[in-house]
């Protein structure tokens, strides 16, 4: 196959008709790929005034121009109307999906419509089938993966199987899409967006090949980047303890949320630290295809299932954020208990972060008497794993009116039952950084309401002065840098390697001179378009609220300065309006 630097090749699958089209999307020098391509596709095919569950809304999976060319260019963006906020949103995942899409010959898959029966999409470089999988109704993520791997068997190892569980089928607002067992389009409810389409899974076989550009420039660049990533030691931390290395330092800083953010430090951290996981439970590390780092940490969960010596074992991936959300936030201080919760979350196909934080709210609401076991069915108590394990199942099944509300988010439940002040929601359930004012604002207002929009948590940690100008400048600049990476669909761990100048060189060597020459212009265009889409689909920057709990946090810097937080919030809101030119 040949790659055309001027066009993105998109497979548009219409589940209403069962037919597909290979589209050529022009002006690649402007949309680049990844986040930019997803935004352009939504701009053309999305319907602003229809809700997220309207079958006409597109569900998009896009890679970047450098996917397959260089190491750590291994991510996919899922673009969709969020069932959580109803707004245009993104979630990013690794695994094998990025290379599978690349070698299937596409820059993106876009799915519109709704299948009549529960279906799986099976795509390769020379195939595109919609399979009836009604027998998978209600099946968990692992069982579904096993069945889906019956498709494209001859490409084992060179394919990706993404799927939803019960949560996605039922439309839980924070259902995720599982990617190749251990990775996820985790946040903002992509799993429900897929469920709305009656689409249980997608199998992509990367069975095609492309010619490389003539000359030696590409090979030299690839070797140079590989060496930088593997020989400089800069990635060691991600492979060694992985992201859970952050638990002890953040706890020491008084920045690790515990018990629904009622405190930011607890001596129980030793039980769930990266060191404890590595020493007691780490089974092995794995990698996304095309990345030599191997940051995926897989723990061994050994469970007794009957009396005497009857055991089963499971492989459960863990990271910093899942340990925060289903460990410290729930007051759990035993690493195996955290794995047990994460395993259940995985099976059900829930976003582990929102699910954990939502249950933390429910535990505090129980403590404070807003709800009782009449609502929660089981006792939800900080530090006790078993109740939360049942709670996860009830969220996915929508067991009663309370859990149906909780499956729409903790703030949705708090509005009905009380306790809005302590619902830890910043656009969606918070990420694990109680670092201070800038992070709270960045997350509440940020495009994905994620800790990944900007490094607000790092700004809080690196700056003792309260300078709103400097904070805003940092957030805007950092977002722009991340947009380049997110259009290439590089891993954010590699942002130190892939600065704008390096990206231009890498693009040129791979045959994308047109994108390299226009990178700054394209970055501005995409930043504006993303914010415009978010505003057009309902985001009201003036209506954003930061719940009271975040003003009560005490970190190593002392109490939160609400005046400073308000100033940063107002300034950031103005900057977003300026970027989006909302209303124009």
């Amino acid at each position, binding site marked *: 196959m040949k790659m055309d630097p001027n066009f993105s090749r998109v497979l548009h699958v219409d589940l209403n008709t069962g037919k597909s089209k290979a589209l050529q999307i022009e002006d690649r020098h402007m949309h680049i790929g990844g986040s930019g391509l997803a935004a352009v596709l939504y701009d053309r095919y999305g319907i602003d005034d229809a809700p997220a569950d309207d079958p006409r809304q597109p569900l998009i999976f896009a890679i970047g121009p450098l996917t397959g060319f260089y190491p750590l260019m291994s991510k996919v963006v899922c673009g969709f109307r969020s069932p959580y906020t109803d707004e245009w949103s993104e979630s990013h995942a690794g695994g094998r999906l990025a290379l599978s899409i690349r070698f299937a010959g596409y820059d993106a898959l876009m799915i519109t419509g709704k299948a009549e029966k529960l279906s799986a999409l099976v795509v390769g470089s020379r195939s595109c089938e919609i399979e009836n999988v009604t027998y998978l109704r209600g099946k968990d993520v692992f069982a579904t993966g096993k069945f889906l791997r019956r498709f494209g068997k001859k490409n084992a190892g060179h394919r990706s199987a993404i799927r939803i569980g019960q949560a996605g089928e039922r439309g839980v607002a924070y259902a995720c899409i599982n990617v190749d067992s251990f990775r996820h389009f985790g946040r903002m409810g992509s799993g429900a967006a897929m469920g709305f389409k009656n689409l249980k899974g997608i199998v992509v076989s990367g069975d095609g090949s492309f010619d490389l550009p003539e000359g030696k420039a590409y090979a030299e660049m690839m070797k140079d980047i590989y060496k930088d990533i593997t020989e400089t030691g800069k990635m060691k931390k991600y492979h060694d303890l992985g992201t859970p290395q952050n638990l002890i330092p953040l706890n020491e800083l008084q920045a690790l949320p515990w018990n629904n953010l009622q405190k930011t430090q607890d001596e129980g951290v030793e039980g769930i630290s990266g060191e404890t996981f590595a020493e007691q439970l780490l089974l092995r590390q*794995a990698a*996304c295809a095309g990345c030599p780092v191997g940051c995926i940490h897989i723990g061994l969960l050994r469970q007794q299932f009957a009396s005497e010596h009857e055991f089963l074992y499971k492989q459960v991936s863990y990271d910093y954020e899942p340990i925060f959300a289903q460990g410290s936030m729930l007051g759990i201080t035993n690493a195996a208990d955290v794995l047990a919760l994460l395993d259940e979350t995985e099976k059900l196909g829930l976003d582990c972060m929102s699910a954990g934080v939502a249950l933390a709210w429910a535990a505090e609401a129980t403590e404070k008497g807003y709800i009782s076991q009449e609502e929660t069915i089981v006792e939800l108590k900080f530090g006790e794993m078993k109740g939360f394990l049942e709670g996860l199942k009830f969220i996915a099944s929508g067991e009663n009116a309370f859990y149906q509300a909780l499956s729409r988010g903790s703030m949705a439940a708090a509005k009905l039952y009380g306790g809005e002040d302590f619902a830890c929601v910043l656009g969606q359930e918070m990420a694990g950084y109680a670092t201070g004012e800038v992070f709270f604002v960045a997350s509440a207002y940020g495009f994905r309401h994620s800790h990944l929009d900007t490094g607000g948590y790092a700004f809080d940690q690196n700056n003792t002065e309260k300078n709103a100008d400097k904070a805003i400048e940092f957030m805007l600049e950092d977002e722009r840098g991340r947009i380049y990476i997110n259009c290439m669909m590089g891993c954010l761990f590699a942002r130190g390697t892939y600065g704008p100048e390096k990206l231009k060189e890498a693009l040129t060597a791979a045959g994308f001179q047109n994108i390299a020459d226009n990178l700054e212009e394209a970055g501005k265009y995409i930043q504006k378009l993303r914010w415009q889409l978010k505003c057009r689909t309902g985001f009201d920057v003036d209506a954003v609220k930061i719940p009271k709990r975040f003003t009560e946090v005490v970190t190593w810097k002392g109490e939160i300065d609400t005046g400073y937080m308000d100033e940063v919030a107002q300034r950031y809101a103005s900057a977003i309006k300026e970027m989006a030119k909302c209303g124009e």
Partner: protein
Amino acid sequence: MKRLEAVRMEQCIGCHSCSLACARLVHKKLSWNTAGIRISSAGGLTTGFEAQVCVACDPAPCAEVCPTDALKQRKGGGVIVKHDKCIKCGKCAEACPVDAIYYEPESDLPYLCIHCGRCVPFCPHNCIELREIPTYEEE
């Protein structure tokens, strides 16, 4: 003579860096398949990884069935590949006892390991080695 061996696959993390490097540097392709070493998983990522790679047969069944000497026996095992002599019959891939030959449908050409070892430095976990063939095997 040396040959490539996937000696420590239990250490493999499934990054595919070896096969991507082979495709890019040896075969000048951007691909998972047109590579001499290909990594597969036997039923999802929970089961670990295996390498599909030429095991350096001597005599090599693929060379024996090749009607035009596009694949010729290499001293010490394995074959020397000349794509310009290939008439695209596909018999080599059928003859390989370990499925190490990828027959690419677009170009109609076989892709397999030539035991050059260019993939070795790209393995971050020391799973593959270019090893001297023991003399007792060469005799």
